[in-house]
């Protein structure tokens, strides 16, 4: 098993005719043959991926015709909030937003809407989800992971790839790898992912990859202390980051006393989490 995404997912790509959308649709489809539809306004009626996958003008049309249940969003920042709202309106089961740069105001409205919706949002500014051997929704390179029983949850993209590839090189496989996104306001939190991994009978251990900014890691530590029985390993990026400067990710900023790497590391240690100090070190400390 896995969390969030398995072999039954029917993927719809929003922005499928764009350069990135098309490229990653090909990669996802090559991995799991489960891209069933795409949308691109004005391109309804066209076919892509070797004329096998239909393109629609709207998400609702695509869902009605193909029973797609998972949206993966590759549209420019200015159109991304609208794309998320369109998929919420169409009652997709899962939305994975790869696009980054959505204004915070739009994300606050989306989060408020999601409170009354059955839809789950991953991201924005997420590399997506990979359940090795089953499916992928997003841009995580599938070659870096093998199927297994370790769950990975992260706020980053390439940093996660480092960790997952280090696991592979040590022969350790992954149940699901989730990138929750590097923005200050995202659809799904560390805590929610930890909760899913804790309940997943096919995940034995969990790796959390955090970074400076906000207090997601501190909330995760509290949850781990009280609710998680499986072993948790963690890495926190940004020990050398200065205060009050945004480190690439909109959410990666130390503001006053909030968000420093030290605070996160100490809180996680107190919760019984085993910390690793550089990405590749996970291969040396994980016990299988």
């Amino acid at each position, binding site marked *: 098993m896995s969390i969030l995404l398995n072999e039954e997912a029917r993927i719809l790509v929003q922005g499928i005719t764009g350069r990135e959308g098309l490229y990653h649709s090909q990669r996802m489809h090559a991995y799991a043959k489960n891209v069933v539809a795409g949308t691109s306004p004005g391109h309804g009626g066209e076919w892509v991926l070797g004329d096998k996958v239909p393109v629609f003008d709207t998400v609702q049309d695509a869902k009605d015709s193909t029973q797609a249940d998972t949206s993966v969003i590759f549209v420019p920042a200015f159109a991304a909030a609208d794309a998320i709202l369109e998929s919420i309106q169409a009652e997709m089961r899962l939305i994975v937003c790869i696009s980054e740069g959505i204004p915070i105001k739009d994300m606050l409205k989306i989060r408020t809407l999601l409170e009354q919706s059955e839809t789950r949002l991953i991201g924005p500014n997420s590399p997506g989800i990979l359940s090795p051997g089953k499916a992928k929704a997003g841009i995580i390179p599938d070659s870096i992971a093998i199927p297994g029983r370790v769950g990975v949850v992260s706020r980053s*993209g390439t940093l996660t790839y480092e960790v997952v590839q280090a696991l592979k090189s040590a022969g350790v496989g992954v149940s699901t790898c989730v990138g929750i996104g590097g923005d200050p306001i995202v659809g799904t939190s560390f805590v929610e992912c930890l909760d899913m991994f804790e309940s997943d009978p096919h995940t034995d251990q969990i790796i959390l990859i955090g970074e400076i900014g906000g207090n997601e890691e501190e909330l995760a530590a509290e949850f781990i202390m009280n609710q998680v029985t499986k072993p948790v390993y963690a890495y926190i990026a940004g020990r050398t980051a200065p205060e009050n400067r945004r480190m690439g990710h*909109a959410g990666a900023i130390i503001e006053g006393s909030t968000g420093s790497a030290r605070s996160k590391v100490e809180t996680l240690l107190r919760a019984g989490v085993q910390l690793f100090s550089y990405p590749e070190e996970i291969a040396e400390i994980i016990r299988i």
Partner: protein
Amino acid sequence: MKLHEYQAKQFFAREGIPVPKSGLANTPNEARQVASEIGYPVVLKAQVLSGGRGKAGGIRLVKNDSEIDSASNLILNSEIHGIPVQRLLVEKAVIFSQEFYLGIVNNRSLAKPVLILSSSGGVEIEVVARTKPEKIEKAAINPLLGLQNFTVRSLASRLGVDYVLWKPLQQISAALWKLFDHLDASLIEINPLVVTPERSLVALDGKMTIDDNALYRQKEFLELADQAVETPTEQEARKFSLNYVQLDGNIGCMVNGAGLAMATMDCIQQAGSEPANFLDIGGGATADKVAAALSIILKDPKVTAVLINIFGGITRCDEVAKGLAATLPGLQRELPIVVRLAGTNAEEGKKILQQYPRLLQADTLMSAAEIAVRESRQVRV
């Protein structure tokens, strides 16, 4: 993006929030002119994007013409927390009996904007939160509904604010919300919001931060943008859409992805040195971008070695390798450059780089950091 006090107050005035009469001055002469128009006493306030201006000597009360030259000279020739003062706000002094704090700020964990009122204004709200938490009341705002009057009343009531002030507080809060919402602010605050002897409210100081992600649709701020916090190199990096932050160390680094860039910086420290910068070239970086990134890193004279760490996902390692190869002949400085390629097309990339013996290659991130630190020690600056 942070706005100056005078910019925030222009927005306040536009929405009907009472602010004192004021004018901007770049010289003591201009300051005297503004003062004679608005009448003494006036307060001179340094316009720098930094807190604690009062304590740093950036705010002075001036009672007459004879004092204004020396006072404005003093401030204009000073630095506040390292930022040279270039502009003064000359503002009519206001007599007041009480100070409030009123603000709206996005709360990350609640994922809601929050209205904050404090009856202990005039000091930083973080300090009040630590020392007199009972003087602060907060309420989340539903972003789909906007700020409601009852929310303001409930905060005022809990803090025991005099009833005659409730209506002006509601009006000012509504104006703040309108600005917050329309301008894509992530923070907007009036501190202090003072009560005059006539029992009216006046905004004596203002702060606004605009969400950088929304600047594409808030074009008026692009002109207002004050790049005081950015170094010239940081400004140049921005032209190439590179995320670059200058730091104090000597190992320059170039990485794809923000999290991995921070991890690479941390590895440099763990290997015994300090990073000279944060630089994320982003996803899908092309050869051009890589070349620009390398030239920006080398502009920093502190840099004695460069570490390039690319984990190809969207980014293709062979593209990065081509970009590097194209840049090498034109490089002004003969510094050690360590390259670590992994992920998409890493093998192709490594092959390209093998033709350039001055590029040192590493297989893992940690070993790349160790090599960069070791090699940097051979370099004389």
